[in-house]
């Protein structure tokens, strides 16, 4: 009973373990978006909506309008409704279901987890873009109108890509700042509406609207014409306000928050 016990605390040998590779974190984030019914429905909705609007446009458009660019751009708005929600849920479903308790005990670096979510969001956005381009191309071939493939430049794809990726990233940023699905989704749809109402009743605001209102700033991307330098600058400032700012604020919040 009086044996001398050493009070030294045994140590963990960590030499054989390496950190969780970033690629693996991305894979897990992609999987987490698609392994629930809600996630599957949302991903399915992106596909269904894309097919649906192209089909409707195919039958409803006037002759001569069934060009590739028109087909592609019709998918932009409806996809733009769903992709941000995807971005939001990528973050908020973890907080709502409190799976962050598990996520952050398997990868204590919250920044790495968020970074993996950003990459996962980009991948989903990319898939949506490829889908839109593919279905638009298919519809164009089926329509077979003369000159349907004219005037397509790399910038058209770039503009479309910026729109869709911007949407999903804005959703992610809103998800991070609210950490609550309902609050994030409502704010995402209502806040821009509020801004455009302000623009309608306050003339002074209209002059700067293109610089601060994301919808206004994005308009040039929808039109087939070239985007001017000033318009790019407006898009950049509006993106900073609506994506970068909430993202950074959300990142700070998540990093400091107590995970419960």
């Amino acid at each position: 009973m009086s044996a001398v016990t050493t009070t030294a605390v045994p140590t963990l040998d960590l030499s054989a373990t390496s950190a969780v590779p970033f690629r693996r974190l991305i894979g897990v984030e992609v999987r987490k978006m698609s392994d629930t019914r809600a996630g599957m429905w949302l991903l399915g909705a992106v596909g269904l909506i894309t097919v649906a609007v192209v089909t409707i446009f195919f039958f409803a458009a006037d002759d001569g309008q069934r060009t590739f660019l028109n087909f592609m751009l019709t998918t932009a708005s409806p996809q733009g409704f769903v992709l941000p929600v995807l971005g939001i849920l990528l973050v908020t479903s973890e907080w709502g279901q409190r799976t962050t308790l598990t996520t952050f005990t398997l990868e204590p670096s919250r920044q790495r987890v968020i970074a993996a979510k950003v990459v996962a969001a980009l991948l989903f956005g990319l898939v949506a873009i490829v889908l839109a381009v593919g279905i638009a191309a298919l519809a164009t071939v089926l329509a077979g109108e003369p000159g349907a493939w004219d005037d397509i430049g790399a910038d058209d794809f770039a503009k479309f890509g910026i729109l869709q990726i911007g949407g999903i990233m804005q959703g992610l940023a809103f998800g991070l700042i609210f950490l609550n699905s309902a609050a994030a989704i409502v704010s995402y749809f209502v806040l821009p509406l509020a801004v455009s109402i302000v623009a309608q009743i306050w003339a002074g605001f209209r002059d700067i609207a293109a610089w601060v209102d994301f919808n206004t700033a994005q308009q040039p991307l929808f039109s087939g014409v070239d985007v001017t330098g000033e318009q790019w600058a407006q898009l950049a400032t509006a993106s900073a306000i609506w994506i970068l700012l909430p993202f950074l604020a959300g990142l700070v919040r998540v990093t400091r928050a107590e995970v419960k």
Partner: protein
Amino acid sequence: MIKVDGLSKSYGSFLALDDISFTCQPGRVTGFLGPNGAGKTTTMRIMAGLTPASRGEVTIGGHHFRDIPNPGRHVGVLLDASAQHDGRTGREVLTIGARTMGLPDSRVGEMLEQVSLTPAEAKRRVRNYSLGMRQRLGIAHALLGDPSVLILDEPANGLDPAGIRWMRGLLKAYAERGGTVLLSSHLLNEVELIADEMILIGRGRIVAQGDKKALLAERGTSTHVMALDSSRLEEALTANDVTWTPAGEGLAVEAEPVEVGRIAAEKGIVLIELRPAHGGLEELFLELTSDTQRDDITPGGPA
């Protein structure tokens, strides 16, 4: 293996943890016992790096949790069995964990088997799980990476008696292989059944710690006695300078049973009951936490 050193946590002016220190040794199951709101969960969240400490620190095997690479391979954590996505199947919950840790998917099946979740149950969504099944799933998740340290918050909550016995076997075997286990509970008999060591916490302070026997030994002895003629016994005890208080129909006496018996024998008092009091740890637990408990339990009063 787990070393908690001068840990404090305050929320505004509320002190949730007040300078607590303890260690958990390998090969032992350490029970972390206290009433609700005593600070058990806060302590465990700080251990897993989910909550920052206000003062002090926790190290696991000499490392801060956040510095452990791929921590799931070293420290198995179950903080809340309900904190799982309702829409995922049990198998999927484990698969995500296995993928994160870089384990083969075959490990998932092994773990499901170890916690006795059938393949049919594993295919169901967590939404349809009972609390007991969620606990089993949570324990499977904690064991997934074959860690050498387990931190489990209220793992027996929701388990039926057979389930608690199963968990005792599982954790004892795990500790015998050299593992370190810290588990919390607000129920003494759970901890009494499962743990070798005990840490009692109330209102953010450690009120007692040690192994079961040591905890009882350091508590001084008292005796429960009942006499045919209680008033004569009371007189005799008082005459011998022995303190007593009424307890139910008998007396709680602050002396060894042998001494109480001798006093009674000298006076020829007939005893109908004589036994050491506080046989279980229940009284100790209630007594130690009574002033830190929400419900007002008057210690020493008639039972």
